[in-house]
């Protein structure tokens, strides 16, 4: 299939692996930030092919995984209101909060709709003027523009029955938090190419300089990933720490101005809780004051959410790259995709799900 097979060509992959081996004077430790990259690495076995030359740590770039339990509980509380139709992405339905997951809320009679785009929520609000449609808006820089456009459309249509429970997060502040951690072993980053298609590569410049780490903007197919890894280890061997774009066929250095414009018209940076990482300053998006009437937290009283209880789950350490999924005592035992204790076992981008799915390790 065109635009796919050439980036999965086995012969080319094996040549790239050899080139990376040849370029490594020692074994380097890199982190791929995005959960989509984690899955591609495991699906195509790049971790195994590179095991003697590069250690790949899996980062917190799965938006489902870092959505705080409090937000999930707020969503569950919303589903208990008969007027509310809660819309979100399919992956969110099985993530456990203190009040259970949204699948259970749906089984208990809540109206939970799986959508493919935030604009579906606008359409549902128009179709059901007597219902309160709430969009549980999660995701990184890549998803935020669509949520912003949903708000702008709803405003233009004069819709008063749509609101957002916003849990959008921004990747660069999380990368800074990871590097500030004294236990960090990260020597170089593969930055998520799709984030850069929106925000551009320049957003990473300050991090590369401040922490002296190479940051290589990388794609999601095996050939793209290996090109990113190769560039990263070459920088490390030369003692460089630059932002380098190896996903130029998709990501531009200055990003997508129209998408950025929509995001910053509707949202502003706010402090955000990251599941497993704590509260990080300016790491999330919140509605700007002029769009505060779309804020579900202001429209509904959602107090009474509980905090997380005790659990053997080490999702926090996995999300920070400090532990591997297989280090967790619950991995593959109490915690499976059917009975997830933590979000990384649920999401199609979670590291624990990737290990179980592709390596079948328990």
């Amino acid at each position, binding site marked *: *299939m065109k635009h*796919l097979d050439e980036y999965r060509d*086995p012969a080319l*992959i*094996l040549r790239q692996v050899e080139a990376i081996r040849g370029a490594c004077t020692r074994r380097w430790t890199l982190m791929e930030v*995005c*959960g*989509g990259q984690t899955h591609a690495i*495991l*699906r*195509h*076995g790049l971790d*195994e*092919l590179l095991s003697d030359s590069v250690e790949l740590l899996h980062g917190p770039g799965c*938006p*489902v995984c870092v959505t705080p339990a409090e937000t999930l509980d707020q969503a569950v509380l919303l589903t208990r209101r008969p007027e509310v139709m809660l819309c979100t*992405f*399919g*992956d*969110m*339905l*099985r993530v456990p909060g203190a009040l259970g997951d949204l699948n259970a809320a749906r089984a208990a009679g809540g109206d939970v709709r*799986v959508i*493919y785009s935030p604009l579906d929520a606008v359409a549902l609000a128009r179709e059901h003027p007597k219902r309160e449609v709430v969009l549980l808006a*999660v*995701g*990184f820089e*890549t*998803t935020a523009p669509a949520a912003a456009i949903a708000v702008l459309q709803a405003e233009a249509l004069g819709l008063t029955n749509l609101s957002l429970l916003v849990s959008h997060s921004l990747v660069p502040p999380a990368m800074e938090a990871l590097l500030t951690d004294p236990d960090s072993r990260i020597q170089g980053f593969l930055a998520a190419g*799709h984030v850069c298609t929106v925000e551009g590569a320049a957003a990473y410049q300050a991090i590369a300089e401040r922490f002296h780490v190479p940051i290589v903007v990388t794609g999601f197919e095996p050939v793209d990933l290996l090109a990113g890894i190769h560039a990263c280890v070459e920088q490390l061997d030369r003692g460089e720490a630059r932002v380098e774009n190896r996903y130029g066929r998709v990501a531009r250095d200055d990003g997508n101005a129209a998408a950025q414009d929509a995001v910053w018209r509707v949202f502003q940076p706010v402090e955000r809780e990251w599941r497993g990482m704590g509260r990080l300053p300016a790491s999330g998006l919140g509605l700007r004051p002029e769009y505060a009437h779309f804020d579900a937290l202001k429209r509904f009283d959602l107090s009474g959410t509980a905090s997380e209880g005790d659990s053997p789950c080490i999702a926090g350490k996995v999300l920070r790259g400090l532990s591997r999924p297989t280090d967790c005592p619950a991995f593959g035992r109490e915690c*499976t*995709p*059917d009975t997830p204790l933590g979000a990384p076992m649920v*999401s*199609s*981008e979670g590291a624990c799900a990737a290990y*179980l*799915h*592709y*390596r*079948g390790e328990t």
Partner: protein
Amino acid sequence: MTTEVVRLAHGGGGRLQAKLLDEVILPALGARALGAPDAAVLDTPGGRLAMTTDSFVVRPLFFPGGDIGRLAVHGTVNDLAMAGAHPLWLTLGLILEEGLPLDDLRRVLASVRAAADECGVRVVAGDTKVVEAGHGDEVYINTSGVGVVPDGICIDPAAVRPGDVLLASGDLGRHGVAILAAREHLGLEPAIPSDSASVAAAVAALLEAGVPVHALRDPTRGGAVAALQELADASGCRLVLDDAAIPVRDDVRGACEILGLDPLHSACEGRFLAAVPAGDGDRALAVLRSVPVATGAVAIGRAEPGEPAVIRRLATGVERRVILPAGEQLPRIC
């Protein structure tokens, strides 16, 4: 003119029910009211009988490449074929929702008839119930099937042996993606047609040619992975798939890439997997390719000794385990 629709009284056992049966259902099936009202009495051809039942609740009722009527025949006929049976008879249980347009019912029944005729099976008994509007989803169908197993045939998932070659009768994963695309209005052009079809003729050809088939499975819900995992668990074999050889149509692959799905987790409704001794693999493929429903048959892997598991061997030499999906397939979000 108002559209004729199914009413509750159509299931009430009175005059309207008799009218529905005599004027809609029986003519559509090409059947006359059977002599015995409560049970069909049938002459058996001798030998062992295979029997199965399956219920069909697909939504939408009509989809590219098929509809619930064809599916209800093919699904049950294929289950019989997987036991090595020659399918003979079907029952047809209809649960109709009040308000269903009679034209839709006629369309479904015409499909049942056409599919049954193609498969050479007879609908010998049936039942119709009507539920209130909002308490069903247009049409649910149950079909039970009976077939006869030729002497000397013993097909069993536990009979897979190390060294066996694994065959797929055609491209995999198509039905699930076709339904998903139709249901979610993904707007793929041209639409992906379901592979809904009877595989009984292909199985019969294999058996008539004397291929010593060890095991057969039709990869329906859960896709090829679920079927292979069952074979692995039953036989204790490690099943290793050659990733490059797995037949998936480009449009199905593309849709799966977009949706974040694995084609091996997606259902087929006109395909089967077979385990045959290594020395019989080429002959089995030649036989299969001579039957219209299996012209795309290929070898996809091999059974090996070891822990029971399904393994995908990538072209780079890396082996990745393939596991069952947790439940409903989840689309990716970023």
